[in-house]
């Protein structure tokens, strides 16, 4: 009986978080996310490849000192991710990445991540821009919206909570919605060689 009540309570609490519409909540701290990411490297690599022999690896010796990914609350929130999906179109991410399948830019629905798959790495990629075409959006998109976009980008390859990911596309859909996407566990992809 006690267990049943506990399970019921936790299920209810989870659903609360899913449906909560935080119009004025502050996003996961941007500063925290940016610590430990070296901005000066031309090609920042993914987290965890802290091996000098690989050349352009990241130095993860900042204040955070670990490669524990930042937890993005928006990945459990349906409203935030649907906002992310709307912004993905509004800010013309679709122009290069299409609806996840890629085009001029790399696809986002597969398991390959050139610049890291953790929320803070995606945040940094959007903020800083990346070589060969990804523009920098620092100062142009408010932090909260970048976190919403990061949550949606992760949901494209099934890395965000399935119960909160968008279940219906607003555009003509050529693939399954994010809520039914099979989880693609990120693989270490080869760092692109300078051409």
């Amino acid at each position, binding site marked *: 009986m006690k267990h049943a009540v506990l399970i019921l309570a936790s299920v209810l609490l989870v659903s609360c978080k899913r449906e909560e*519409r935080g*119009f*004025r909540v502050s996003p996961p701290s941007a500063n925290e996310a940016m610590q430990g990411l070296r901005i000066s490297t031309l090609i920042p690599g993914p987290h965890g490849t802290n091996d000098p022999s690989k050349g352009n690896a990241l130095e993860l010796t900042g204040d955070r000192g670990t490669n524990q990914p930042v937890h993005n609350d928006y990945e459990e929130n349906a409203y935030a991710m649907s906002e992310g999906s*709307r912004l993905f179109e*509004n*800010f013309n991410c679709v122009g290069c990445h299409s609806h996840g399948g890629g085009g001029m830019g790399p696809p986002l629905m597969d398991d390959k991540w050139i610049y890291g798959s953790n929320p803070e790495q995606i945040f940094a990629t959007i903020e800083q821009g990346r070589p060969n075409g990804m523009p920098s959006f620092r*100062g*142009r*998109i*408010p932090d*909260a*919206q970048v976190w919403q976009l990061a949550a949606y980008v992760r949901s494209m390859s099934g890395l965000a909570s399935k119960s909160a990911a968008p279940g219906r596309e*607003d555009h003509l859909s050529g693939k399954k919605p994010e809520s039914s996407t099979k989880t693609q566990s990120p693989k270490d992809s080869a760092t692109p060689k300078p051409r």
Partner: protein
Amino acid sequence: MQNRTGTSLTLNFRLLLCIPIMALTGCSGMQSALNPAGAQAGRISGLWWLFFFVLTSVYVLVLIFTIAVFFRRHRSSLPLAPELPHPPRERRAQTIVGSAVGVTVIILFVFLFAEFATGHSLQEQPEPGALQIKVTGRQWWWEVQYQDPTPSRMVTTANEIHVPVGRSVQFQLQSPDVIHSFWAPNFHGKKDLIPGHPTTLTFKATTPGTFRGQCAEYCGFQHAHMRFVIVAESTNDFQTWLEQQRQPGREPGDETEKKGKEVFMSASCVMCHTIQGTPARATVGPDLTHLGSRPFLGAGTIPNNLGHLGGWVLDPQSIKPGVHMPQNNLSPGDLRALIAYLESLK
């Protein structure tokens, strides 16, 4: 005793009379179907008044007879006599009931034909040379685009529609997100905006003035704050306004406004808004080319002045929770310059 009951009855009756009168005073004004400013709304309100007077008289008649019966029963304090067959009385009752049914059927048919006639007169095609306006309903504001064969002469504005008096206006209604409904009660009835299915609405304004319209189909969090202003004015005034709206955004006049423009171009504003004549050309949010000349902000939510604009830019989520415009963290100096620039865009 009976006298007191009578007084309280009259008092109650007066109170009852007061309620519809109060309700009616709420209807007069800038957003009312009973204050028609166009030919189409005139026909609709004619139908409304026909219904109102006929139904009110029927209602009052029925009430009078009911009350009369009530008092007649009371007057005879004798114990009820056993009901005996009384052929003349029964014949009279039959005649009364029969003619009442007949009158009711006639009234219903009059209503039916009046409604058909009104509906038919509203279906008329726009006159040749009608002004073409494309209205796009979005969550939660209205994009208004004056069509012109030359694309550079098209005018895009938001939540504000100017129409010339005496000229037929055709609205092309569309929606990119959810179903909205375009309702300017002083001019016409409601018309839904359906995603993927453009609709049209035609009316002709006859009375100059400033009126208000509203989204009339629940469309999400801020449905109630999805209003627009309709200004009906003389052809000359309208042409002056349209010509002024065709101009690109005014260049900054002083140092503050110049800084404000820089802030606009380097902050998040430029991701969603357009100012004609500048590099800002995004179409996610309302066109701000002539923001300073608009009466309201946030689709009729707050009046447009320096103070309200400052609050709106910093924290629109506390004014219109759920609106798609995000909170912006601007330094006080930047904010001051930005709103000075925006208000200068007349």
